[in-house]
């Protein structure tokens, strides 16, 4: 049945070559943990992507209940965690996953660094990777405020002051992030929500696309 369906689509759109380009490629022996167990270090990039997908999915579902409004944000988080079936699980996935993404991306960076994989011709991919690291940290920072509890508020106060300490443009960065020159409040929450849910994920997907296209064109770096 499924085969017939596939053949029907393939006959009309010729999707097999596309599928082959995306999925069918050689995994060299030196990066395959089945050959050398120590090659598991090559899995961290894929694991980062896997957890990122979980973050995107769990985040999409969280927005079904969450409201980015200072009167209701905390209540909505409390409600979705304690009253909604599996709310604790879905929020837990997003909460713990966020830390895990940072850990995995860090391990991936270490692997690339210690195998020297950033060297020519892969410099551009290293740069895109560093930008991705920045985007992930930005997502962590903006997501931290959204539950709108005391910890979130004061962590963001400190975080915004750190941003404000940038020479010359620090003051402007602060106002653009907080939405006000003195108050950390209603406008800060809506801005952080917009950045967390729309702006940074868009940047993340674009950069991830570039990251993957480059690794497919250049292949995985050779053994040490």
């Amino acid at each position, binding site marked *: 049945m499924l085969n017939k369906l596939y053949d029907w689509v393939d006959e009309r759109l010729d999707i097999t070559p596309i599928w082959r380009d995306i999925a069918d490629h050689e995994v060299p022996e030196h990066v395959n943990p089945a050959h050398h167990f120590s090659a598991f270090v090559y899995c961290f990039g894929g694991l980062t992507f896997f957890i990122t997908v979980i973050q995107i999915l769990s985040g999409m579902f969280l927005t079904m209940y969450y409201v980015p409004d200072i009167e209701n944000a905390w209540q909505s988080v409390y409600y979705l965690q304690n009253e909604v079936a599996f709310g604790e699980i879905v929020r837990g996935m997003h909460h713990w996953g966020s830390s895990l993404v940072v850990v995995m991306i860090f391990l991936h960076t270490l692997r690339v660094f210690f195998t020297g994989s950033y060297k020519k011709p892969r410099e551009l991919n290293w740069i895109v990777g560093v930008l991705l690291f920045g985007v992930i940290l930005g997502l962590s920072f903006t997501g931290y405020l959204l539950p709108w509890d005391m910890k979130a508020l004061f962590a963001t*106060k400190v975080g*915004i002051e750190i941003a404000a*300490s940038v020479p010359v443009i620090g003051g402007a960065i602060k*106002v653009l992030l*907080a*939405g006000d020159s003195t*108050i950390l*409040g*209603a*406008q800060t929450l809506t801005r952080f929500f917009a950045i967390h849910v729309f702006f940074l994920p868009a940047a993340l997907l674009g950069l991830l696309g570039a990251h993957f296209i480059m690794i497919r064109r250049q292949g995985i770096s050779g053994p040490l």
Partner: protein
Amino acid sequence: MSNNRVSRRQFLGYTLTGVGGFMAAGMLMPMVRFAVDPLLQEKAGGDFILTDQKVADLSEEPVRVDFAFEQVDAWYTSEVTSSAWVYKEGDKLIALSPVCKHLGCTVNWGGDPEHPTQFFCPCHAGRYEKNGKNIAGTPPLGPLDEFAIEDRDGLVALGAVKANTLVK
């Protein structure tokens, strides 16, 4: 006419780029202006808030003066409480902001038993002299901000926060 005539292809290229650029700008301009609005909004400010603190009760020793005011945060208006460290220098009234210039925690007068005549921030042990001057070797990079202050019929009234003018 010059020798480098514009070909039909070039002309169309320029025209399409120009029109495309114009359309892109037309799309982006409203959105960018929308996003940076907080940066360009004029703040009213400057209104003085009357506190309960009697001017006659003030001394050379800074005291914490709490006050409440109506804060307008875009569409959200609320009653907010805040505080200032107020003291007299001769006849002059001085009010310093309690917001640490390091990372925005709240400073206390004499909060550190080892330095009873300084402001102390418990977060990262930042210290300031009585006039708000940050003490070298502690985290803050600048002096405490200052409130505009007035004597209104014997009561302290506080105005806008401005950069410290006491530290030379």
